[in-house]
């Protein structure tokens, strides 16, 4: 009987996975098409998630800007999602941060561009000079 789950050993020995298997199972089961998961698949997914966290952190740190400052920031992570093909699937949940003032300026510029185009359509004098 496998009633003692690996991640829950009480003694402080080296454990196979440190993420809670019950939580990993809940996340896996939240996908509607999944009916059942065997224990080995669950342990492997938990382990893979750990490797993923390590890889995402080290990759972002190595390619990031904070090496001199010894820091890992949100921007390093969103850069990774944007630039690396393997981490592309994270782009939606790690969007690039942008200052509100910058965004407003961008909006304004866009609007001005459009207005300019409208103007050009009406009077071609500037465009052709």
């Amino acid at each position, binding site marked *: 009987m496998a009633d003692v789950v690996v991640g829950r050993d009480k003694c402080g020995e080296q454990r196979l996975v440190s993420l809670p298997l019950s939580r990993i199972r809940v996340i896996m089961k939240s996908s509607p098409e999944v009916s059942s998961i065997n224990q080995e698949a669950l342990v492997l997914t938990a382990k893979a998630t750990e*490797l993923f*966290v390590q*890889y995402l952190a080290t990759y972002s740190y190595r390619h990031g800007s904070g090496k001199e400052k010894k820091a890992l920031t949100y921007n390093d992570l969103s850069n990774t999602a944007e630039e690396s093909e393997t981490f592309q699937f994270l782009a939606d949940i790690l969007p690039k941060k942008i200052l509100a003032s910058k965004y407003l300026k961008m909006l304004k510029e866009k609007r001005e561009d459009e207005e300019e185009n409208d103007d050009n359509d009406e009077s071609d004098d500037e465009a052709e000079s």
Partner: protein
Amino acid sequence: MAERPEDLNLPNAVITRIIKEALPDGVNISKEARSAISRAASVFVLYATSCANNFAMKGKRKTLNASDVLSAMEEMEFQRFITPLKEALEAYRREQKGKKEASEQKKKDKDKKTDSEEQDKSRDEDNDEDEERLEEEEQNEDEEVDN
């Protein structure tokens, strides 16, 4: 089951520990970066599950198994995880086997202790088995009566 959205989060303390162990000593990880990695990990689980499920469906199986997860890693371009995952799977299987043997050994030791005091050592095992069988039968009868 996931009833609240926070049920899909992984524990921050564990995620932070994994990040810290992966990075050089003394690297400061902003709070925002931690929660971003934690969210990314949840998305990774869902992505991997969905990929693995496709492989199970292709094989006309309803239960996800270890090979489905390994195939998913390849599909997701995380081939670098495959070797450590296979090692972990081996370790897990050894551990399960070890636990099973340990519990059987424990049971045997217990039986021996109670018997060895009075019985001939050479006949110990036969007696053990007979007694066990007798005990089991008695228990079964009891259960049947109870029901």
